[in-house]
């Protein structure tokens, strides 16, 4: 909304954007119906929204029917390239692969994989299994909790028993908070599980969740295209990416006000957009953004930047993934 207000206030933008709001209240079944409602009751054809992959996949048939466009500003698990969606946040080669490349040489290659029981956790952990194998490590456990589950005692017991080098956390919401709190208690009993020895790593954890996580997040790692400096322009990478979405959308619409999905794809070709995420390109074929990849460590209510790589081109299908480049030369393996 801030981006829309800024663009409308900027006389040089040459266009005025009119927002139409609907709130599905995180109920996956309401995304498609509300999106349909927007297309039926207004002339709006661009939707900035959806957080989970589940809601995005629910919305796609409606976008295809109405010729609409979704600007998706959250990280996702990759392996999708719909021409009615512009993927403005990171895909696996911009989150999981660089995060693992950072963690493996520093902590070790043996991981424990956690996820909430839906597509994000399943697909992220599937890619992680392959990455761990390529790095010469072992998956010491892979466990899923239903969305909203907060009983994490068994996970903690299994982690204590298997002693991994890191934990990939694809739990969401309250499950994630409950896990981090219990893991902090475990670290207090056994320093092998402190963030310096066995960090919890995430690809979707932002500043927005730090208040709910509190002290127990400290020292653990996350990755994203933006971490809020202090004082911050945006509260999180989701917000920064949504803002950048509106900027790119306005840029194209100001030149071609009636642009549909096909024209947008053409407008992306060879073009760079100046946005609040920095200058970004959008791949005309996959409609995924070229983004910075920043690894952050949780400090007191913010993320310290641990590493930063600018303008990483998207590879949503990991077609260009090269184990040797990611993890160095192949390690020797036992051949049976």
């Amino acid at each position, binding site marked *: 909304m801030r981006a829309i207000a800024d663009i409308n206030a900027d006389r040089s933008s040459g266009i005025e954007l009119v927002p139409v709001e609907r709130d599905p209240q995180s109920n996956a079944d309401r995304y498609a119906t509300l999106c349909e409602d927007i297309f039926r009751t207004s002339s709006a054809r661009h939707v900035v929204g959806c957080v989970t992959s589940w809601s995005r996949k629910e919305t*796609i048939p409606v976008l*295809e029917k109405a010729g609409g466009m979704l600007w998706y500003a959250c990280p996702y698990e990759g*392996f*999708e*390239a*719909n*021409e*009615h969606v512009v993927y403005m946040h990171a895909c696996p080669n911009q989150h999981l692969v660089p995060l693992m490349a950072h963690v493996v040489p520093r902590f070790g290659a043996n991981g424990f994989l956690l996820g909430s029981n839906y597509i994000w956790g399943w697909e992220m952990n*599937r*890619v992680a*299994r*392959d*990455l761990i*194998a390529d790095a010469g490590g072992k998956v010491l456990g892979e466990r899923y909790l239903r969305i909203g589950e907060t009983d994490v005692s068994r996970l903690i017991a299994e982690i204590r028993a298997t002693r991994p080098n890191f934990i990939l956390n694809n739990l969401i919401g309250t499950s994630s908070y409950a896990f981090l709190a219990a893991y902090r208690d475990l670290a207090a009993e056994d320093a092998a599980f402190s963030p310096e020895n066995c960090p919890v790593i995430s690809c979707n954890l932002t500043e927005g969740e730090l208040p709910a996580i509190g002290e127990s997040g400290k020292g653990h790692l996350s990755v994203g295209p933006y971490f809020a400096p202090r004082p911050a322009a945006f509260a999180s990478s989701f917000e920064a990416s949504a803002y950048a979405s509106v900027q790119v959308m306005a840029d194209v619409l100001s030149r071609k006000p009636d642009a549909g999905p096909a024209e947008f*794809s053409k407008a992306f070709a060879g073009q760079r957009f100046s946005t609040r995420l920095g200058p970004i390109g959008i*791949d005309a*074929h*996959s*409609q995924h953004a070229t983004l910075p990849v920043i690894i952050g460590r949780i400090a007191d209510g913010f993320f310290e930047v641990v590493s930063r790589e600018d303008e990483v081109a998207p*590879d*949503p*299908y*990991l*077609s*260009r*993934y090269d184990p040797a480049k990611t993890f160095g030369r192949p390690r020797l393996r036992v051949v049976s």
Partner: protein
Amino acid sequence: MSKVPRIPNLGGAKTFVLHRPHPTVQAITRQLSAIGLETVGCWPELPAEVLAADFVFFDADLGFDEQFPWKPGEAPMPLVALIGSEAPGRIEWALSHQADAQLLKPVGNAGVYSALLIARQSFEARKLQASEISSLRLRVAERQTIVRAVEALSKGAGDGRAYAQLRSLAMSWQISVEEAARRIVAMTEEEGGDDQSHRA
């Protein structure tokens, strides 16, 4: 089964799309490029370079045998049939080319990725099965050779012991029982000047 890499590495793979210029070709090309493959559209003929392709998509509606530089069913790469009309004759023709996967026309925003993975897996499985069948056929063809080798080795000691001896010879020579039988028959023939055919 050979081990398939789990992150399917399709980057840089070359795909030929045998279809007349049409929005379908654009839709397929867009999806292939998004996945990271290189695409060549062609119609009505496949150029010579197709033999080095990783995948071929072909039109099942207007396609015909002479377009392919191989016999039906003998494509050296995975094939994906593009099916518009579901006329039984056309499906039969696509089947004669042993398409490994299919994609229904009109092609929209999705479908190519799963078609690639399914085509590749079923092509690999078919190739493996064909090589297993041909090696089994060769072995079956050697039945009579084995009988003759056992005969030559038995010399009154009984078939059971002769067969055990044949197996142990095969093991020590590190070759198949059939191959060992052929050697023994050849040696016997050299000794006895027997030139009968030993193939069934």
